[in-house]
């Protein structure tokens, strides 16, 4: 059972790793990354590493996407302000 699940999960992980790097749009990449983090956490549970799985869920499914999204928002925000200020002039 664990062997079959493991094969499936690892195959899925391998595919999504490639999918992440091939995604050009950053926002969809973040979603893919979050999904990938969950897959990894699931694999950690399956392979008897609950501690790491918890750390992985908190980090790669919550903290990382949050940071990336905040960074993107901040950059977009600044671009928008920059444009607005230019228009004003």
């Amino acid at each position: 059972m664990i062997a079959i699940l493991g094969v499936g999960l690892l195959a899925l992980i391998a595919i999504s790793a490639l999918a992440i790097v091939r995604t050009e749009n950053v926002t969809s990449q973040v979603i893919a990354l979050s999904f990938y983090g969950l897959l990894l956490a699931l694999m950690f549970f399956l392979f008897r590493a609950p501690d790491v799985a918890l750390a992985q869920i908190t980090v790669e499914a919550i903290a990382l996407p949050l940071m990336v999204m905040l960074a993107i928002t901040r950059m977009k925000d600044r671009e928008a302000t920059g444009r607005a200020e230019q228009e004003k002039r």
Partner: protein
Amino acid sequence: MSYPADYPYFIAAWILLCGLYGIARSRHLVHMVISLTVVQSSTYVLLLAIGFRRGGYAPVFAGLQTGVKVVDPIVQALMLTDVVVETTVVALLLAMVVKAHEKGGTTSPDDLRFLRG
């Protein structure tokens, strides 16, 4: 020993190369940072695969007899360190990206080459 049975080792290599490929082809700095986390995640898979033992229990002895067969706790401790390292590096890199975008007005590594020659 042989390819099909040891597939997790090779998955780790695949993920490593995927991440590096992502960095090499990247056109967006945030994309590059995310690719770097993919590179890092290959080490999780590799470490976990190394410490795994078929039929072993998780190394938590709350409700387990001492002396039962468990998987390796060491690699898991190493992975914990690894996870922290990953987040911190990403936080730092993203701060650089945000600031570089602020000052240079671009998120493309091709346009941010002030240091040529």
